[in-house]
């Protein structure tokens, strides 16, 4: 279809997609902050990360491929920024404004959801390679495939990390059996244990 359209340079210049690109970025800011906070454990660090990410995204807008998931593209930038610049300073998940440690009560607004404060503490104990994929696949709407691209690993690796991360969370939260879960039902597997060797190095 596009081949039929006359493409002269004037129309290319005038319809440069920057304005809508900006709107796309604005719309993704809340997700970028949430993902940045999930990586760093701090909303303040997340804001700096998002600022860097927006600047890079802006100057590399040409490398965004239309039709692909802009969230995945932005997450890739943010994640690379975090690991190359922030983490090197020795910043593991830190508790400056500690989303993974504070006992601020957050109501679990959905039926059957676990206590959020408990979940956050447990999340903070996960190896980051498991935490990041759990968040991406479990909460941000990214597919396994997209999460694999963001992390630069194979899809099977993402699936494995999600699986291990979920098991570790269940272990930390003490809900390895279904009747431990908020929504109780028939007990399925009684002795699910997670091997302690499954730890990222």
């Amino acid at each position, binding site marked *: 279809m596009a081949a039929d359209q006359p493409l002269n340079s004037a129309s290319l210049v005038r319809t440069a997609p920057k304005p809508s690109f900006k709107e796309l970025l604005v719309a993704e800011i809340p997700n970028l902050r949430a993902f940045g906070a999930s990586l760093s454990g701090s909303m303040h660090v997340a804001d700096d990360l998002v600022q860097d990410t927006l600047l890079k995204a802006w100057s590399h807008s040409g490398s965004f491929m239309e039709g692909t998931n802009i969230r995945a593209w932005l997450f890739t930038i943010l994640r690379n920024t975090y690991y190359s610049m922030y983490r090197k300073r020795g910043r593991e998940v830190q508790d400056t404004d500690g989303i993974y440690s504070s006992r601020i009560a957050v109501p679990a607004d959905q039926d059957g959801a676990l206590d959020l404060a408990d979940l956050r503490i447990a999340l903070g104990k996960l190896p980051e390679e498991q935490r990041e994929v759990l968040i991406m696949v479990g*909460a941000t709407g990214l597919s396994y495939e997209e999460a694999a691209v963001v992390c630069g690993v194979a899809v099977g*690796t993402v699936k494995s990390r999600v699986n291990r991360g979920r098991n570790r969370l*269940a272990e930390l939260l003490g809900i390895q059996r279904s009747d431990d879960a908020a929504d109780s039902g028939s007990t399925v597997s009684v002795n699910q244990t997670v091997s302690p060797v499954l730890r990222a190095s």
Partner: protein
Amino acid sequence: MNGRHDISANQAAANEGNPNIDRMDAPVLDQKIQDAIGRSLKAHYDDLVSAPVPDRLLALLAELEAKEKDGGS
């Protein structure tokens, strides 16, 4: 990546030829538990997403856009 290799080397060897087992190096949780964890992850994340966006981030984008329009090409 290194970590994973170390962890699963023995298991991968034991399960050679079965790609499913090779990846399943942890037991699969009961569906109800998976669902509960899934809902909680979503609640955790949605709570972060709903935090108000600092003005400076919006201002930054407005500035970048204005600069581009000014400077033109």
